[in-house]
């Protein structure tokens, strides 16, 4: 299959400014070794205990008489954990050594507010300090990579934001084309050095959008067929990410989100539908990239702002909790399988699990081992050790 670089060579387009966004100051592709991170955020606080089920625990069934998932329904992994039946699409991936399942992931003095906890995950700060820059935004600032990180969303998440950071957000494929064809935007993007602060911010943003979109659109024109993804928002998002990866996009960080996990009431049906979407979308994404030889260069990280309380509530749901799981998927995982210890379901902090792995130590591994940042603590601010990815 013809990839982007071959296409550029054969058409003689190599080296024309058309393909190179000015603001990204592309010098060469030599620093790019093809490793990409794809984040999937589960918004609302996923109930991890009903995602990866501790089916050997009596406490689990006692605390969740209505919500507990029967051992007979579960696809068993190891360490006494089993897959929610809706996640059956992940079974193959797990069995093939392409999935790492961290247990007991959290941070000290957990915050049970969605926003604050999500901010903590996005900024990788501890619970006591605030930041308007995200860990991936800071990475894009510090890294030598000159291509924009890409979020498939209506707007940019805090995780991707940084001063002068190279991140952009587009809702979908048409979003890219609309920008490249927009005359006003092109005219605005030509104007620089505005004295007025806020106006200058708008003009700069317009320039970033235009040049970033020009680059992405140069890749997408060469679209190839894609496998069948679920007809869901997430399916479409991951399909677009796969398209770009298969065309050798030098974008190294992609960000996707699925919302709706705040299951205070009638959780079972809602969560099962969401998890099925996650599982089917990721399975399609993996097959797609595998067929293209890109799966080994891809790391998918799935997280949520917190897990949920051990005991079910009166509404057939669960309330905000603390520690949970974090999943990595990819073709090149050094230590796949279940990692870390399952927190006790009996010794709780106000009814919630006590974490044993700080999520920032996993970020450290992702930043250093995968995204080739020399010292993750310049972003994370603290020395928490590093988990091998």
């Amino acid at each position: 299959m013809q990839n982007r670089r071959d296409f550029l060579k054969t058409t003689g387009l190599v080296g024309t400014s058309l393909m190179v966004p000015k603001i990204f100051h592309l010098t060469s592709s030599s620093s790019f070794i093809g490793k990409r991170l794809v984040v999937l955020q589960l918004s609302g606080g996923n109930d991890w205990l009903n995602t990866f089920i501790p089916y050997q625990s009596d406490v689990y069934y006692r605390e969740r008489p209505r919500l507990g998932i029967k051992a007979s329904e579960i696809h068993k992994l190891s360490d006494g954990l089993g897959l929610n039946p809706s996640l059956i699409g992940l079974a193959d991936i797990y069995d093939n050594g392409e999935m790492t399942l961290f247990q007991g992931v959290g941070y000290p003095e957990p915050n049970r507010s969605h926003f604050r906890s999500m901010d903590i995950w996005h900024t990788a700060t501890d619970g006591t300090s605030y930041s308007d820059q995200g860990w991936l935004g800071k990475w894009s600032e510090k890294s030598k990579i000159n291509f924009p990180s890409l979020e498939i969303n209506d707007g940019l998440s805090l995780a991707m934001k940084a001063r002068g950071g190279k991140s952009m957000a587009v809702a979908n494929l048409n979003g890219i084309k609309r920008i490249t064809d927009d005359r006003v935007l092109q005219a605005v993007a030509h104007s620089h050095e505005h004295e007025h602060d806020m106006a200058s911010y708008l003009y700069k943003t317009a320039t970033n959008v235009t040049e970033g979109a020009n680059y992405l659109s140069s890749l997408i024109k060469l679209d190839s067929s894609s496998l069948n993804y679920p007809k869901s928002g997430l399916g479409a998002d991951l399909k677009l990410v796969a398209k770009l990866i298969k065309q050798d996009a030098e974008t190294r960080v992609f960000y996707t989100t699925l919302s709706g996990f705040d299951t205070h009431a009638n959780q079972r049906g809602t969560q099962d539908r969401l998890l099925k979407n996650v599982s089917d979308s990721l399975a399609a994404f993996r097959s797609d990239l595998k067929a293209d030889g890109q799966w080994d260069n891809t790391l998918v990280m799935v997280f949520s702002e917190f897990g949920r309380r051990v005991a079910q509530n009166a509404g057939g749901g669960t309330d905000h909790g603390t520690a949970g799981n974090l999943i990595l998927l990819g073709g090149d995982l050094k230590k796949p399988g279940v990692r870390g210890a399952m927190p006790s379901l009996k010794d709780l902090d106000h009814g919630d699990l006590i974490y044993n792995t700080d999520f920032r130590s996993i970020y450290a591994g992702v930043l250093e081992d995968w995204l080739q940042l020399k010292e993750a603590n310049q972003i994370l601010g603290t020395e928490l050790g590093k988990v091998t990815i």
Partner: protein
Amino acid sequence: MKTLNQLKHFYFRFGFGLTLEDYLSFKKGEEFSAHKWLERQLKFNKTKPLPTSKTVKPFLPKDLAMNKADRQEKIKEERKIILKINREWIKQMATNENPLQEKMALFWHDHFACSPKSSFMASSYIKLIRREALGNFRSLLHGISKEPAMLLYLNNQQNKKGHPNENFAREVMELFTLGLGNYTEQDVKESARAFTGWSVGEDKKYRLNERQHDFGKKVFFGEKKNWMGEEIIDRILEEKQAAEYVSGKIGKYFLGIQPSQDLQNELTEKFYNSDYEISSVIKALAESGEFWSEKNIGQDILSPVELLVRMERDFQLNTDESNFEIIVQKSLGQVIFQPPNVAGWPSGKDWIDTSTLPTRLSLSRAILLENVIKSRKNKSFAQGEDLTENLPKRLKKGLSAVPNIAAIDNAFGDLDYSTKTMEFAHWLLPESVIANNEMIDVISRLNFKGTRGSLALIAALPEYQLK
């Protein structure tokens, strides 16, 4: 006497911008007193009800007995009515003689973020925040805490004795009054018990379900007694922190930036000492040096709803035949009654990123030029190019919003193209950004013809997003 620069600033921050009439009166040299205007706005106490809110009916248990298909139909119908209320409110913002009241109600909708499930509850909720918008925060807080829409939104229906659901109790302190870090987890757990049984009855109104209420002793803010929910709210408001947190947020809403420590102290004192009269904060802000500071003027970004309202007014839109208001809200990422989460919407720069900016810049073009393209009667602007072909489809489809170009043209009289363009700029944009090189550069690169084109040009500039 204020300059045009100050006048625009004032109207943008305390209302939805400078109307054409106000701009023209200023040009004639008419006196304007910010103080008097504000006094008038704050005295205003007649809330014009939204038409649909007078006709909504609760969804009663007998309605639930209907078969599945009918129920689905009913739910669909309900969604439509909620959108209708949404549009009526936007219309009110664009036409109300008391924009400050609507502006403040919009603030409360963000502060008390809530997504009502039925038209009956949406009406009740919106009625409260509009009526109390400039009233007393204590009454507003007590009221909102018993609004069925809010109780359901924050899961208090599931907050029962022995099985507390803390969502509501937590947000009352975190988002409504004190802010994070000013209470303990213990306070959350104990106050959640005090709110057990605060629920929505079969008539879809608030009721205390005594069987589910925990009448036991609770320890809240270090005091052990049989706390009731109302007492919890009053106890929270005894904390000066509540006055600081809420007045600081109001301050940021109007200033565009966090108030300085000095101004914050003043706001806190006035709010607290007036027992939470909202007008005390607004008056102090309007009289502050910070509000009028040059470096603050035009340095904030319109929220999507503010942008929509200003376009309705600026272009004198007739949108009766379409779902225009809803489509615009969805495209720009802020839909009334659909906040992203309990913390409400973003603000300022956070509204702008690589995906929202292109849509914002293309909107006014679509409104002003689309109708012409459809009718094919007038190809004179922009040399017959379809400047809207790159707009999102849903935007194009619903853009049957008819601007009243003739009225605008008449108001300005007979002017040549470039004079008219500059007039539009002085009417619609912050003074400090007019006539800088960038703007001239962009204008010269684009070539939109006629009054319509000239207006579209000014409204297509990034500066049109500023307030």
